[in-house]
């Protein structure tokens, strides 16, 4: 008898768990009927997923997020009439973070690759970028064109635009965790060269940086930065309008000059 009671209780618990799950469904559908922009405004904050990536997103001495992208995101949220919350994420998980709704957009000097465009709702490009080759200063003279790169071993960020270039040029490369690790590989001598973003190279390599012994030589391709939202989000269109407005009234240029990226800015039409 006792056994029966226990079994009954267990079954009841299981059933109530199922009910608990199914009752949460209508709530999810309810939120789905709102557009992404409406939902974000209702939440009262735009959650921006970033990584520590000077000069786009980085922390000042007080631990506040600053940078070209961080300031732009703050201005965009203000334009929507809401607050901004900047959250550091693992770059590998950026699409997961978006779809998980733990962040509302990825705004972090993101190259608009085919993969990015197919998995996110992207804004118009706002910044130019290139993939450049990083080598040690003392051998830089030997590698001035793409033909000379064939004998080098490369380190590139896995899944990055740099890796795409390495494949396109049929270079001998190792995929590492991120662009910074790629630089470390060159500094440590475990790889001869790395391929990283030109904006990052400008900030991290050469005189007065952590990598004074390195320099960049060949530019492999031209590409553009954009902001990524959840697939189907209407926020991308809203941001495009905002970009246009800011470009016309000069705020975009003003912020760009503050972080020294004005030369890379794209005209917004």
């Amino acid at each position: 008898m006792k056994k029966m009671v226990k079994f009954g209780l267990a079954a009841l618990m299981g059933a109530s768990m199922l009910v608990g799950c199914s009752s949460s469904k209508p709530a999810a559908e309810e939120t789905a009927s709102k557009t992404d922009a409406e939902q974000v405004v209702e939440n009262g904050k735009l959650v921006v997923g970033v990584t520590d990536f000077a000069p786009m997103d980085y922390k000042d001495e007080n631990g506040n997020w600053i940078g070209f992208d961080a300031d732009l995101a703050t201005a965009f949220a203000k334009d929507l009439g809401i607050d901004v919350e900047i959250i550091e994420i693992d770059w590998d998980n950026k699409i997961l973070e978006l779809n998980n709704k733990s962040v509302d957009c990825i705004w972090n000097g993101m190259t608009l690759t085919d993969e990015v465009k197919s998995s996110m709702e992207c804004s118009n490009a706002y910044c130019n970028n290139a993939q450049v080759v990083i080598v040690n200063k003392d051998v830089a003279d030997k590698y001035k064109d793409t033909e000379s790169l064939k004998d080098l071993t490369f380190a590139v960020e896995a899944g990055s635009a740099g890796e795409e270039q390495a494949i396109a040029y049929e270079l001998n490369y190792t995929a590492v965790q991120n662009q910074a690790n790629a630089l470390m590989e060159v500094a440590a001598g475990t790889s001869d060269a790395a391929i990283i973003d030109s904006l990052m190279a400008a900030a991290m390599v050469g005189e007065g940086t952590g990598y004074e012994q390195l320099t960049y030589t060949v530019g492999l391709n031209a590409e553009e930065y954009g902001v990524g939202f959840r697939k189907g989000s209407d926020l991308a269109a809203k941001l495009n309008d905002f970009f246009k407005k800011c470009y016309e009234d000069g705020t975009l240029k003003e912020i760009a000059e503050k972080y020294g990226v004005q030369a890379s800015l794209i005209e917004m039409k």
Partner: protein
Amino acid sequence: METFLQQLPTVLHALNIGFLQTLKLFIATLVGAIPLGLLICFGSTSKYKIISGFFNIIIWIVRGTPLMIQLLIIYYFPGLVLHNPVWGGSETGRFMASALAFIVNYACYFSEIFRGGIQGISVGQDEAGLVLGMSKVEIFVHVKLLQMIKRILPPMSNEILTLVKDTSLARIIALQEVIWAGQSFMKGSQGISGEIWPLFFTAFYYLVCNGILTVVLNRLEKKLEFFR
């Protein structure tokens, strides 16, 4: 050397903030996993097959899969599959998800240690207690509990020291614990980039923390030596 001294305060500040997260996760896990482990232990040793079977399957799944994957599932499953992002994106949400994953994971390991501790006590003590007219709960609390604690202390110490280091796994869902903080200076943060020594520094934090824990746990073990 000069730049090192200039960078040191910035790095230590960042590591301190990171280590605070590590400590918080460690303490939350211990506080949650010890009672939950005891509960699972009772469940898995239940004389009702259906209950013990249920808990044994849970223990098998949790101990048989990597904690890193459990972290990813607990954090991303609600939003991606159920479309109900219960955790939110903030640091607090990430901490709560990590704490849940660690508590469940460690509770399952603890429960097996507890089981060993309880089953190692001779049946004679149960029988003696019953003869004296004690209830099962009384026998557990007044007779067996302290003996169990004494027996499980060495294996528990092992798990506790491992837990301190395992907390670093939470960085997979971007919980900014001490290793995340140290590694950020490799990637470039607050004007310091391409430096590996901050990451090596994090090792000292673990070393000191585990040193203190070892002393405390050894003392506790000594205290319990008055009976065998």
